């Protein structure tokens, strides 16, 4: 059986982390190809429901990343996002959703290397955790997979 390849979805802001990931590219720093980036204007725009949707659809891990505090292009979107994450994480933890599968980070446009590190670390830790089968079971994920071969 092939080694488990985690599916990682990254929700990033346009101005810092997306640009940071661009810099990773420009700097030709290699990282695991398991991650797929979804671009948002700002972390403030990231709806917590989208994180759940990613798990619904079979993601094994999630990265949420934006500008460092005080560096937000929109001055305070990331502060608002952070407060939401605090409560969202707390609720996830309380309901038993695996918060170890959701990595939050600040990656600036200058931190190309940090982006590669974040991705690699997330892929490694999710690989360790294995497929998120508890959630997939509730989301009837495998059933969907096999129903039409």
């Amino acid at each position, binding site marked *: 059986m092939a080694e488990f390849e985690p599916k990682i979805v990254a929700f990033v802001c346009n101005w810092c982390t997306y640009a940071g990931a661009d810099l990773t590219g420009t700097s030709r720093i290699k990282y695991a190809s398991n991650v797929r980036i979804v671009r948002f204007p700002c972390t403030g725009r990231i709806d917590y429901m989208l994180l759940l949707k990613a798990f619904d*659809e079979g993601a094994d891990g999630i990265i949420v990343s934006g500008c460092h505090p005080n560096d937000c292009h929109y001055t305070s979107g990331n502060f608002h996002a952070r407060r939401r994450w605090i409560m969202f994480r707390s609720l996830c933890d309380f309901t038993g959703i695996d918060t170890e599968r959701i990595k939050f980070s600040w990656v600036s446009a200058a931190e190309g290397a940090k982006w590669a590190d974040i991705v690699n670390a997330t892929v490694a830790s999710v690989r360790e955790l294995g497929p998120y089968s508890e959630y997939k079971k509730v989301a009837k994920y495998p059933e*969907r997979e096999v*129903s*039409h071969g």
Partner: protein
Amino acid sequence: MNIDKRLVRKDSLEKLFDILKQNSKKIFAPSTKNGKISFRDAEKFSGIVTGYVQTSQSSKEVAFPRTEKIFDYSKSKDGMSVKGIDLKDIPEVILWGVRPCDATGIGELSSVFNWDYKDEIYNNRLSKITVFGFSCNNSDEYCFCTSVGGNPGNTEGSDILFTQTGENSDYLAEIITEKGLAIVSLAPDLFEITNNIEKNKFLAKVPVRFNHEEIKEKLDKFFESKEWIEQSLRCIGCGACAYVCPTCACFDIQDEAHGRKGSRVRCWDSCGFSHFTLHTSGHNPRDVQSQRWRQRIMHKFSYMPERLSVYGCTGCGRCSRACPVDMNILEHLISIQEVTV
């Protein structure tokens, strides 16, 4: 067929349960969780509760699940392929401990699923259900089966109806249908021949509180009444009444899509919800709660008898018990009867 009456010893009930289990029957019976008695898959006889007036949810879910897949679909370049659910996968089920009002409800539900289109999935589920009715020895202030044509020992809808003959006593078993007979044939020894037992004296006394025919007639001229607003001011518009009701049959069709694949599912819906009738345009013919309350009563006591020749209410009283704000349907029906149009 003629109703065959047998005696089942109190102790034989567990034996019957075990025999049915040995015959790999799935048994749904009332059990308690979080203080609520509901029909659940019963593994052991000891888990089954007795002596309850009514389960908090009706047994309709076994025939009409709150969520059920109708078909799977997938899209490809060659077009769309649809795969219906395999009816063979639907299990044979014994519904144990159904009160006569619920058993009657099954008939009312069936009339909705068969009046024009014959709903294959529903009918298939129904065909695989054997209803073990249990007559009511007790009732409470919410019960009003007798006002809507039922009674605590009504055989309608049951395949077998058990009536306990006094506290801690044996059961009178009325074998009503072929399905019931089939059960008897699995454990013929447990069903003893008996003299004619007068079951009525063991049944709960449920007084007749209103005349449903009269109510129906009244409702025909009652549509514009202010009474609806008065009655429903405290209604908060949830769907608890509809979801515990044995006859409410409203459903929503949803596509759960995942890329090129997906499933179409049917799930319960309620006319009490404000968005139930919301049009795309933004217009909502039942814009306020009083209109939705009116719809609930009219549907059960006017539209259904008119179109399907059945009443949409079995008098089980569940909606009143479940209502978080004490909307008591019996009280409101009585007041409709009393109000002069």
